[in-house]
């Protein structure tokens, strides 16, 4: 049974390792995309504009209240159509098809972004008010203030929350397997189907996911310790 997991033409070892790389790639790009969306919508939520606040509130409520699978189906079946519609406005005719990787990144990124929004919003609110005031007193412009004073502190404060979002995002990428992207879930399903050894391959898939989650847990723990150097935890 173990020869099925060897590398090369006869075993599935190399395919499974490649699929693990794909899972890590798609999770990382989804998290990055989600953090970008999260930063934008967090600033919407904290802005004074009623319209921006409502838009951000609508986005986080819908995405967090609707099954991930439904969001993925929306983009899987509707993503290309939406892109073609926009392209038409700019005068581009013809068929555009988005790759499963792109669809997956946008879908999981949009889901992850809703959770990131809350994490980043919380982190911004946790930056002491005096920091804003002090920077303004020094005559800093809004732009300089955001990037040199607020952003580094937000990054540190948001880290534990982002660690949680990462774990959720990583697990959500398993759902992209329905679009045909060959990540761990899809690869183990293919292998299970062609060898009639589902138990073996799903067990391997479980181990691969546990490997990634454990490693990234360690990583976030270390990063947290590193970035909190010189800070006393208030709850300790």
């Amino acid at each position, binding site marked *: 049974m173990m020869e099925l997991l060897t590398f090369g033409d006869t075993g599935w070892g190399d395919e499974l390792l490649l699929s693990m790389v794909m899972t890590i790639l798609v999770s990382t790009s989804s998290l990055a995309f989600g953090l970008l969306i999260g930063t934008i919508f967090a600033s919407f939520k904290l802005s004074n504009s009623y319209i921006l606040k409502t838009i951000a509130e609508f986005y986080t409520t819908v995405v967090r209240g609707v099954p991930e699978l439904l969001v993925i*189906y929306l983009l899987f079946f*509707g993503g290309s159509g939406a892109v073609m519609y926009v392209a038409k406005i700019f005068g581009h005719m013809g068929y555009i098809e988005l790759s499963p990787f792109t669809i997956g990144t946008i879908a999981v990124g949009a889901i992850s972004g809703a959770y990131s929004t809350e994490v980043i919003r919380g982190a911004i609110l946790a930056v002491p008010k005096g920091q804003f005031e002090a920077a303004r007193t020094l005559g800093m412009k809004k732009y300089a203030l955001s990037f040199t004073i607020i952003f580094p502190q937000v990054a540190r404060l948001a880290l534990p929350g982002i660690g949680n979002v990462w774990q959720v995002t990583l697990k959500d990428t*398993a759902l992209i397997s329905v679009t045909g992207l060959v990540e761990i*879930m899809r690869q183990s399903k293919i292998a299970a189907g062609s060898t*009639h050894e589902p138990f073996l391959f799903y067990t391997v898939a479980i181990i691969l996911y*546990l490997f990634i989650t454990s490693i990234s847990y360690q990583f976030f723990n270390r990063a947290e310790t590193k970035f909190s150097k010189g800070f006393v935890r208030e709850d300790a």
Partner: protein
Amino acid sequence: MRFDLMYESFFKIIQGIPLTLEVVFLSTIFGLFFAIIIALMRVSENKLLSNPAYYFIYVIRGTPLLLQLFFIYYGLAQFTFIRESFLWFFLEDPLFCGILTLTLSTAAYSAEIIRGGMQSVAPGLIEAASSMGMSKMQRLRKIILPITIRQALPAYGNELILMVKATSLISIVTLMEITGIARTIISKTYAPVEIFIVAGSIYLLINFLITRMIKFSENKLNHGTIQ
């Protein structure tokens, strides 16, 4: 926007609501039962009890739900001795496998929530109870659990919403609940946006009602306590 299609598909999709609610209800009830046991094992000082609970939670929380479902539904079916045993009567049924997977999943997540709630019980309360001569069981029933429930309720409300969302996965093993029906209509009509709005609104409504219910019980349980 094709409103006629939305109107038509609404009546098809609502037929999936009973199945979604049935799966949520059954897995939540069974899951909560196991969660309490697992949480008690996890806080136990006996390593033979706390280690299995720790590893169970570790595996469930570290792997995607879809993989767990496939492992139970397809993975276990591989063995002849399972297919010949009485277990097969249950494991060949996708509905049973779906409920089993969701039960195990919510049991692991809720166990952590309950553990957090238990640890928030002030040690002085437990000491006071034992100095009054309460037995271990009495302390658990009369002091620890009531406080735990109150502490854990907000987090458990989130878990319930995650459960409602998680039921959509059983559509992948052929069950026709809300997402399953929505998917079928999308692939026939190619109107993803319209169907998403209809199905999504139903989920949002269910989750809204759950949030209200949790809020209501929170207010009830917090009656007479100072926040």
